[in-house]
């Protein structure tokens, strides 16, 4: 089409110039094989701008966590603090009881993730490879449990736990996770379901002919082929349990009774109270709570996950592709 336009214009310029104009146009607007410069420029600049906006809060967090009180008040200092102070981190870590809460966060998220993996893989396999009466109802209920807010079942469950005397222990999280009712468990069940559907049925049938039972074929054939699904579910389950504060505070940490269990996220949500008790206990040694200290605390509580993310980034980014949520 461009050629037509060019040729239809009665120009006196030599052919060489025409070719150059053509080339320039091709460079800017692109051709069938290659995208043009203008489009690429637009895409890159948009991506970089939005990327910066995305990272902005994190950068802000990092830069202000190093600042002293004077730097915070000084309007001429925007990003780079006058001196890198680590005392903010020290105070924040001490007030959050960092070592203990980190360990307990890891235990809570890790154990529940393990339970989720076991239960959701079994349930997903049951849904994917067998026909049984009431399968559609089960499916509908699984989706309903995803959409239904947890608040509606929260109060009776709380009473149930307190009757069973497991309130404030890890069992309050393990039991629902073991029965496929944990946080976001419907998503994990659906991931496993989608994955096990793709395991060729011929393989399983061949195993049956060779004398394997249903459980043996599950453990020997289907499970080993579902490693990507296991990785995806493990990562997401870990992250979501790590970041959960509402239910953790209710069941494991205990609202009325302090159980001794705590996580970094809960410590962060009670940061102000924690810090003031810490400041009182140390006396004159601690400065009063300011923006830098709370930013340092925030950074400290996301730091373990960030490290995990950057180490395992490939699995995170490819997780959705591998899990096959979007179909074949």
């Amino acid at each position, binding site marked *: 089409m461009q050629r037509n336009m060019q040729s239809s214009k009665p120009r006196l310029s030599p052919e060489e110039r025409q070719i150059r104009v053509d080339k320039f146009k091709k460079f800017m607007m692109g051709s069938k094989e290659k995208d043009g410069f203008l489009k690429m420029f637009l895409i890159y600049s948009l991506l970089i701008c939005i990327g910066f906006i995305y990272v902005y809060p994190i950068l802000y967090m990092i830069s202000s966590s190093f600042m002293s009180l004077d730097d915070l008040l000084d309007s001429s200092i925007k990003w780079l603090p006058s001196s890198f102070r680590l005392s903010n981190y020290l105070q924040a870590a001490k007030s959050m009881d960092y070592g203990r809460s980190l360990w307990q966060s890891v235990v809570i998220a890790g154990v529940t993730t393990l339970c989720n993996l076991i239960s959701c893989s079994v349930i997903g396999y049951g849904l994917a490879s067998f026909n049984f009466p009431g399968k559609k109802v089960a499916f509908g209920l699984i989706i309903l449990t995803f959409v239904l807010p947890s608040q509606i*079942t929260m*109060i009776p469950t709380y009473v149930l736990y307190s009757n069973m005397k497991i309130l404030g222990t890890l069992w309050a999280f393990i039991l629902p996770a073991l029965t496929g009712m944990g946080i976001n468990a419907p998503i994990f069940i659906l991931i496993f379901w989608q994955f096990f559907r793709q395991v060729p049925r011929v393989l399983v049938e061949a195993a049956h002919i060779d004398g394997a039972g249903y459980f043996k074929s599950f453990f020997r054939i289907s499970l080993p082929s579902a490693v990507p699904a296991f990785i995806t579910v493990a990562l997401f389950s870990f992250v979501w349990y790590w970041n959960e504060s509402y239910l953790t505070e209710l069941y494991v940490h205990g609202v009325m009774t302090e159980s001794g269990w705590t996580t970094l996220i809960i410590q962060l949500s009670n940061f102000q109270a924690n810090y003031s008790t810490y400041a009182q206990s140390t006396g004159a040694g601690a400065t009063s709570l300011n923006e830098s200290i709370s930013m340092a605390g925030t950074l400290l509580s996301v730091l373990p996950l960030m490290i995990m993310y950057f180490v395992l980034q490939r699995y995170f980014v490819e997780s959705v592709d591998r899990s096959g949520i979007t179909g074949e």
Partner: protein
Amino acid sequence: MTKKETTQSKPKKEKKVHIRMGSLERREALAGLTFMIPWFIGAAVFLAYPLITSFWYALNNIRITPMGKTFRFLGYGNFTQILLSDQQFLPDLVDYIISTLISVPVIVVFALLIAMMLNQKIKLKGFFRLIFFLPVIIVSGPILGMLNGQNAGSISALDTQAITQAISSVLPAIVAKPIGDVFSNMVTILWYSGVQILIFLSALQKINSSMYEAARIDGASDWECFWKITLPTIKPMIVLNLVYTTVFISNNDQNAIIVLIKAAMFSGTSEKGYGYAAAMAWLYSLVVLLLVGLFAGVMLIRKDPYEQEVKKAKRDMKKEKRQLKRMRRRQARNAKKYAKLETKTVA
């Protein structure tokens, strides 16, 4: 998929031993139910029982005394009290509804835009995906609360103050406040779109490129390709993302209502407590389900043009049949009437 294959493999075996087939099916069903046992237990203990009990709680006033819980039946008393005299619940609920209605489409459209851009042939694709997925790791109630509290959640280059002022001057306060909140916490709202971007991206990569080529040959532009090929193909993913985003926002700690419910649960006052909180939870859950239904419904309401035509044709056929029947009945009736008249006149 499994269904198809079983039906395909059926006829081969059916010729020889028919009875065995039935027992195999029964055995398979039994095995399936065995695998589902954990879920059945979970559904009974952590879904059915709490649902029924919480409905019972919602109809009662529950006080906790050293002797145990005392129930006093109220009927719908809790609900009327929440709706008529609770100072916080209704305004918070309206806030939640409006901000969800705004932010969910914003998040999904934004995720789609980013996914479309990442789907182009660009360099550093992995790096950009890394950045856009990073918030998934960080997003949690307390951390968002901290960041929003320090105003790190707003785009400083954008003058959000002016936008919120302009909005509040035009709209009534009850609508303007949530809209203003959405604008002033724009970054953290966009942070919710990490998983959605990945879902869209992997859906976009699975669209068959020969479809685009065919459309190009027929003279379609990029713009037309987007509306006629891309959007219809990834429509299921759009619904999925809408539902996922709504659920995610509803369960987030930043949501004022779920904090309110927890506070009511442990409130020591005589009219609040477990029953009152349960009633709140029921109202809130109904609203969430309605919102999810709304988003899913808006997307699913427009069917395939082909299906629409088929449905229309079927409806027309039915109508015609009905008319035919009516005509026949009338004819029969008239014939009878005339026959009677004739006999009368003859007599």
